[in-house]
Structure formats: C-alpha cells, structure tokens
C-alpha cells in the first residue's frame, strides 16, 4: 500500500485501518481454511486419513520394523499377530506389517500415476472437443465410448497380454482407462461454460481463442475435475489390487496390497488373518479418497474464492 500519495501524514488510526484492509496474510488464510474445513467433516476426516497414508508411504523405511522382503524361514511361518509381528507373518516368514507399510507406496504411487496421467491427457482433449465441437468432438466422444465399453480389468489384462506384465504396463493400461472419463467430464464442463456471458465478454475485449480456453474456461471447470481425480484415486487402488490379484500387475516380491491378498488366499485355512490387513489397508485408502473427494466438491465452490485460495 502506498502511503506516499496522501499529503498528510497517516495517523495512528489510519494505519490500523489500512492494516485491516490489507490482503489476508498467509497465516490468516490458513486460519480461514481450517475454520472452513472444520465445518466440513468429510474433508477433515478424509484429508487426515490421506495425510496419514501419505506419511506412511513416505516414511515407510522408518515405520516398518523389517524390509518388505526380509524372510525368516527359520522362525515359524504364518505366525499369528504378536508384539514382534503386529500383523503376523506370511508363508515366507515375512513381516506382514512391514509389507503393508511398504505396499502403501506401491498402491498409492500407482493410483496417483495412472489417474494423474489419465487426467493430464484426457482433460485437454476433452476441453478441445467441447470448445471446438463439430467433427472433432464427435470423433473424440465416439472413441471414448469405445474405450469405456471395455471393462477396466479386461482392458488391463488385454494390454498386459500384449505388452507383458509389470508395473509400467499396469500404469499405462489404467491411465488409458481413465482418459475417456476425464475427457468426457472436461468436455461437458466446457460445453456449459463456453455459453456463459463472461466468455462472450472475453471475445468482446478481443481475447484470442487459446486464452479464452486457458483463462476463462479452464479455471472455471477445474473444480469438478479435481473432485473426479480424488474420487478416482480410490477406484485406481481397487483396480490395481484387482489386476495384481489376478497376477497380471505388480510382480512379487514387490508388496502390492492386491498381490498380498491374492497370496494369502492359498492359506485361508491355515492363517485367515493374513488377508485381513491388506484388505483393511485398501478399505482405508478407498474410504479416505472418497471422503476427501466429496469434501473437496464443497470446498471448490467458486463462491468461496478469495477467502483462502
């Protein structure tokens, strides 16, 4: 704020008044954010769960008492939970707790990568289709229809059958599955927003097309896209687990939760406890993603802009 333009020295009161008019500081914004989030239980609970999961993923070596592949065949296999092995041990004598902790990295990592890739590729395509309309729109939408008719697992299995199994292939296959949905959402958002008066106003002041797309349409359709992103994280975790369960995804000994589930199936009778913990981990992550996504939907309402964004 320039105080120099006033010919009179700014009084004490004036200073205080100016302070009050100042843009909220970062601290105030954070405070505003939390006071808003407090009223939004879904966002709070989902957010904390996700945060917790992310911390576990990042600090896996610090949390896990053993490495994910440390076998202790000399000791008892398929041990029940104890203080030494909180989640028990598996058929190779590996500590299940450590494997679940390391598995967080794999599951969350794959989910973020493939949903992220799907969104980054799908959204621009969908926005262009919605903005340009015409034959390009028809082409993109029919193509996405084709991809969407194929079930996720079938698609992933087909791709792994062609390209061989492995982490990269799973990520590629799932990303491909997530492109059409992202494109469709972006397209429908653009369709409704391009008719808004502020887009007409942008044309009146001589904005070029690409700037209209980037500055007038994109920021106003980003909310639902972010919500879709978080909601899909949980579905990607499930899909990865499913593919790994079938044996096409993550390969042993890398500890993916889906793979652990599938391995534990063979010991249902000897150690039923084995399948509980990876299953619970999947449940927690999916729940966290869904709660957070729902909460975000309320948060990203543009009416709350300027308070903390």
């Amino acid at each position: 704020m320039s105080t120099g333009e006033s010919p009179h020295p700014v009084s004490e009161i004036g200073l205080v008044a100016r302070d009050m008019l100042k843009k909220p500081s970062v601290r105030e914004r954070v405070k505003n954010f939390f006071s808003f989030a407090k009223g939004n239980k879904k966002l709070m609970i989902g957010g904390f769960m996700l945060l917790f999961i992310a911390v576990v993923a990042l600090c896996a070596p610090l949390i896990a008492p053993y490495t994910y592949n440390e076998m202790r065949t000399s000791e008892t296999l398929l041990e029940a939970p104890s203080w030494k092995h909180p989640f028990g041990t598996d058929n190779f004598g590996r500590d299940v707790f450590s494997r679940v902790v390391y598995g967080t990295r794999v599951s969350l990592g794959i989910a973020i990568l493939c949903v992220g890739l799907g969104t980054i590729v799908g959204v621009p395509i969908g926005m262009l289709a919605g903005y340009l309309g015409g034959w390009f729109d028809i082409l993109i939408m029919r193509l996405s229809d084709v991809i969407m008719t194929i079930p996720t697992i079938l698609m992933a299995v087909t791709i792994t059958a062609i390209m061989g199994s492995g982490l990269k292939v799973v990520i590629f296959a799932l990303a491909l599955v997530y492109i059409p949905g992202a494109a469709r959402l972006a397209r429908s958002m653009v369709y409704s927003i391009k008719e808004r008066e502020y887009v007409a106003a942008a044309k009146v002041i001589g904005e070029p097309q690409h700037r209209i797309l980037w500055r007038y349409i994109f920021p106003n359709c980003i909310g639902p896209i972010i919500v879709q992103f978080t909601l899909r994280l949980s579905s990607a975790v499930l899909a990865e687990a499913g593919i790994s369960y079938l044996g096409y995804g993550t390969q042993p000994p890398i500890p993916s939760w889906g793979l652990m589930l599938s391995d534990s199936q063979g010991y249902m009778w000897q150690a039923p406890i084995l399948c509980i913990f990876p299953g619970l981990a999947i449940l927690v992550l999916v729940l966290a993603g869904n709660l957070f996504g729902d909460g975000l939907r309320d948060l990203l309402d543009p009416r709350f802009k300027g308070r903390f964004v």
Partner: protein
Amino acid sequence: MKTKRSEYIRVEHLTTSFKLPHGRRLVAVDDLSFNIYHGEILGVVGESGSGKSVMAKSLLQLVPPPGTIDSGKVFLNGVDILTYSDKEMRSNIRGTEISMIFQEPMSALNPSFSVKWQIEEVLRLHTTLNKQERYERVLDLLRKVSIPDPEKRMKEYPHQFSGGMQQRVLIAIALASSPRLLIADEPTTALDVTVQADIMDFLEGMRQNDGPSILLISHNLNLVTERSDRIMVMYAGRIMEMATSIDLVNNPLHPYTIGLMDSVPDMGKEGQKLTAIPGELPNLAELGNGCVFYSRCSKAMPICEKTKPEPVKVGTEHYCSCHLHQVVPDGGR
C-alpha cells in the same frame, strides 16, 4: 450536438440471419442502415426479440452460430470492418474501437480472477504498458467509475461486489483501452432503480470528457428517451422510426412508436388510460412480403400487406418506415 457532429460509424443494409432446420432462415436483423456520431448516445428500443442485441453483436462480428451476417457494410473511419478477418477484428476493433457492457454484470465477469486481473487483461492485450503502468491505469479506471477504496477492492473477486459495483467494473473493463464506441446492451435492466440512475448518470457524464459514443440498447422507452440524443425504434429486425429524442417524443409518426408511447405511464397525466399493442411479435421465420408490423397495426392499409415500407426522411434527422408517411408531408422539412 453542442459541437459540429462527425460521423463515427455508418451501417448500411446490415442483414443477419440464423439458420434453422429444413433450410429455413430466421432474419433477425433485416436491411438495417443507420449511423452513429462521435460522442453521441444513440438509443435503440424495441421489445424482446426485435433484433437489438443481434444487431449489436453483428457490429463486432460476434453473432453466435448458427447466425451469420449475410450482407451489409459497416464503415468505421471509412473502412468496411465487415471485411475484416477474426484476427483483424481482435487486434483492431474489439476492445479498442468498440467495447460492450452486458445486462447481467455478475455473469459477465470471470469468477476465477480478481477484478484487477480482468481490467489489466485488456491492457495486456492491447497496450505495451509494463506492470507498474498497468497498475496505475487500473487504479485510475476504478477511480473513474467511482469504486470506493480501489486499491483494496481491485484485489477482490467479482462475487464480493454488489450488482451496481460489478456493472461499474464492467464499464471500467470496457473503457480500459479507450474505445470510441461503447455498446451498452440493457446495462441497467438487472439493477435496482437507484443504481440504474447512477450508472446512467455516469455513462452520460463520460461524454463531457471526450468519452466514447454510446449505443444504448434497452426495452425501457423512458430510459432511452431521457438519456439519448437520437433514438432508433426497432421491430422484428427492422427500423420503424428514427429521430432525435425530442422529435420522437413530441412527434412520433410510426403507429408502432405511437403504440409504445401510449403504453408507458406518464406521471403528468392523471387518469390516463394505458393501452397495449395487441398481439405479439410475429414469427421471424415466417414473415411475408408486407410490413412486419402489419398484423398488429391499428392503421393497417391494403398496401401494408403487400410491400415493405422503406425508411423515408420525414424531417431533419427523422426517418420513418410506414406507408402512411411514404409521401413526404410538407416538403421534407
């Protein structure tokens, strides 16, 4: 009219139509010719669907599809801007020569950016000012449209402003690169009456300091007669009558104009009966060869059904398209 008036824009035989299914066309603007002088307020009145907005958008070549400008010329400083490409329109006309403000100020502002950003955007597009100079100019513009405490308010977002303030911001955006013509499409319809007067006072006041000409579009006859120098009465895409506001109020000639005047209450007249024009706007896709107002006209004659009346000069700056006035009464005075 204080000084000698020079013509700013001249529109000749502008026709804009919309493509309908089965090869039919809806002619929204039909053979329109008029001009706008420097610094004048030209009012355009007409009921909804009379082609006012389409006419305005045609000037900017921003008719939404499936609409197209079929024929006509729009001369601006002697150049026909209808021959301009979209790129030429963007860099030479839109925002710099001709600007526009809208009916719903809230929906005409981008909710995702601060007011400062949106005003600055015009400057980024059309000027080479640096950041500091742009800031000063934004501040200056906001002061000009009397936004209180502009340094603080410019960092806020559109929803934090009231309707009247939003309209002021829109005006600031429109004025940012000093256009010569401001199209005001129902600028006060969405605002309450006191704010309405404020905004109109401001627009009128701009002319004192070499402001732009204003094309004031409204369906509010009172507002237009009060505020404009000349008035164009439109009906079904055609000009019915065009005159100076004083002339039009004192001596309306076209039956449609007379009908409009009679349907507006006058505070001076006690016990005045308000009359409505019977019927409604004809379907623009099914117009015959006759006068567009024929079906509702109280003075319809047989000829009105067969031929379209052309605008005829009936006085200084007074034109009327009606068969009643095709023969100039007293020598075209």
